[in-house]
């Protein structure tokens, strides 16, 4: 027995224990329950958010959990905290906790149907949450769409820098190819524009052909990727980093010198095709397809090639093909994301796709976690929101974000949630009635 060494728990340990205990009932909340709880909260914000904000002395609903308000006007901290508590924390906590048994039963019931049905139910709820939350302000709609696009870009770069273990810098270039291709496609065909002339088809057809433009952008970007891949993957070695960096600059100066697409001034007037639901659908589609890929033996071959290329070839893996496919595939999605991006901002110029964009995307990949779909989602969402929220700090933002990155690199060198699998089928499972945490829950 080691009774003599037992000292009274430190405050930190007690705090931890209290947190764990408080969290205990929420362990049994299934994803379905959380989504519905959030729906209640954002619905509530919709109904009483503005009056409550006025009451607390704010001029509008705090957009991103009030960080912006707090940073520009610290005196508002109590108001923001009360707002968050009343609108988000309490409703979500209550609903999630007390509906858990119900939604566990529903989740169990859904399990009887094909995975697709369950997935659709969850996705519809997720979209409803997002829609209700975002539609309170144009700003939120913009942030939500840019964040989802960032997810596509981050995940696709993770394929190369994480799953394949090479270092590629060409993603802004791929985004540019996709953005310009999709922009020209819609502007020439469906828009009366003073640069590209009269629309060739009725503008009302535009939204229906938008996917074609995006895919075209993806394809052009994949063709661009071929130019990087052929010299880079011919021989072993670290040529990719240099060649891809060069590619990024070449693409940028290519567009700077192309007067048809406005040169350095860029292209504007992209119609508003990339609405919230459209961006949502493309994001879901891209995550689903990329996740499928990395979980197949063909996709896992990337890991084998990364961890030991010689062993991979000896086990029949065609290493060159594996790398090529993944690289082109990643470029395709970066191109699609670029197309969406152009139609969200309604304006692009070559400068948009430079070294700053590269730094942003790399940061999201390494922050969220290498070799992980979840990691890329976490990285893209958190860095995007943080960077939006820290906007009032202006120049200091560019001190805080790098410091965060450095801390991550020190304490978690592969990122927040690296090397995990995104197991969709487990996500939707009902949660056991606190049976998992049996060790804690004794009163």
């Amino acid at each position: 027995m080691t009774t003599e060494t037992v000292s009274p728990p430190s405050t930190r340990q007690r705090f931890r224990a209290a947190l764990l205990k408080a969290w205990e009932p929420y362990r049994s909340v299934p994803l379905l329950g959380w989504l519905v709880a959030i729906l209640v909260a954002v619905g509530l914000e919709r109904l009483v958010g503005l009056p409550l904000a006025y009451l607390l002395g704010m001029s509008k609903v705090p957009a991103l959990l009030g960080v912006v308000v707090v940073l520009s006007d610290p005196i508002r901290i109590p108001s923001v905290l009360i707002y968050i508590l009343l609108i988000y924390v309490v409703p979500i906590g209550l609903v999630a906790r007390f509906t858990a048994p119900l939604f566990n039963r529903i989740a169990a019931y859904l399990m009887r149907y094909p995975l697709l049905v369950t997935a659709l139910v969850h996705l519809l709820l997720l979209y409803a949450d997002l829609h209700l939350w975002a539609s309170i302000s144009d700003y939120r709609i913009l942030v939500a769409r840019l964040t989802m696009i960032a997810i596509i870009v981050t995940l696709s770069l993770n394929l190369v820098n994480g799953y394949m273990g090479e270092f590629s810098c060409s993603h802004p270039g791929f985004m540019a190819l996709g953005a310009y291709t999709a922009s020209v496609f819609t502007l020439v065909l469906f828009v009366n524009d003073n640069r590209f002339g009269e629309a060739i088809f009725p503008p009302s057809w535009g939204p229906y052909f938008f996917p074609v433009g995006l895919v075209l952008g993806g394809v052009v970007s994949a063709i661009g990727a071929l130019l990087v891949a052929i010299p880079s993957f011919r021989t072993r070695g670290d040529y990719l980093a240099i060649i891809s960096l060069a590619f990024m600059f070449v693409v940028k100066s290519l567009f700077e010198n192309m007067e048809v697409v406005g040169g350095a001034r860029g292209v504007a007037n992209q119609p508003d095709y990339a609405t919230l639901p459209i961006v949502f659908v493309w994001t879901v589609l891209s995550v689903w397809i990329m996740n499928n890929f990395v979980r197949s033996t063909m996709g896992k071959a990337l890991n084998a090639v990364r961890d030991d290329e010689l062993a991979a070839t000896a086990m029949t893996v065609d290493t060159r093909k594996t790398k090529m496919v993944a690289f082109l595939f990643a470029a395709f999605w970066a191109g699609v994301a670029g197309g969406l991006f152009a139609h969200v901002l309604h304006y692009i110029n070559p400068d948009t796709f430079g070294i700053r964009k590269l730094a942003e995307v790399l940061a999201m990949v390494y922050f969220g976690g290498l070799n992980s779909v979840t990691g890329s989602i976490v990285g893209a969402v958190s860095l995007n929101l943080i960077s939006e929220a820290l906007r009032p700090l202006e120049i200091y933002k560019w001190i805080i974000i790098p410091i965060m990155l450095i801390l991550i690199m020190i304490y978690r060198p592969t990122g927040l949630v690296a090397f995990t699998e995104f197991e969709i089928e487990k996500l939707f499972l009902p949660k056991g009635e606190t049976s998992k945490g049996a060790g804690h829950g004794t009163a």
Partner: protein
Amino acid sequence: MALLEVRNMTHWFGGLRAVHNYNLTIEKGQIRGLIGPNGAGKTTIFNLITGVYHPTEGTILLEGEDITHLEPNEIASRGLGRTFQNMRLWRYLTVLEHVKMARYSKLTYGLVGAFFGTAKREAEEKANTELAMELLDLVGAAQFADQLVTSLPYGIQRRVELARALATEPKVLFLDEPTAGMNPEELIQMMEIIRKVHDQIGMAIFLIEHRMKFVMELCETIQTLNFGEVIAEGTPEEIRNNPVVIEAYLGKEVEV
């Protein structure tokens, strides 16, 4: 026609002649051994036959077809499976994923299956999982299927590597020092596993070993290599009593 035939193979690393005028024939189901002092060129011969290097001179025929200039993955898919002296397992793949990976060239679901998760892919991945589990069972590593290899004991890692090589469905299995670094108990187990695998699957085996007990018991014939040249070839009995071999190699070996 021999299953595998190597004719007059010579290989230079720059100014170093690592292999000189090497010949080999392996028939179906044979177990043959390759011994020799450190740096004799044994691993280099494996690397040449399996396509890691292309020989400066000579031809390699598998079932009569010239495979001398094929890439390692093509040679592997045609039926030359191998393990490595220093194992070369994959850091971030589980045991099961290791074995399934060696089925890469047999996958037919293509990119469509990889991207969209078709029924064909499900079926193929499932069949491969079953086959991989059988192989893991055969080498006695099935209970570690879901673990990362880095967390496993050395002896188990060797078995995983063997199962992985078996998953390529080799006609000839090349084992480069399969008992390197093992304790005597693990060595006996490995010997039994190789026997069992050979009995059940019946492929030919070509193995490099330093442990004489192991080679002498398993192999029908043994080649002895010194400075890249075969200095003796014969049954274990003949090799054991060959004065040239004793002088070049066995004389220094404590374990005989």
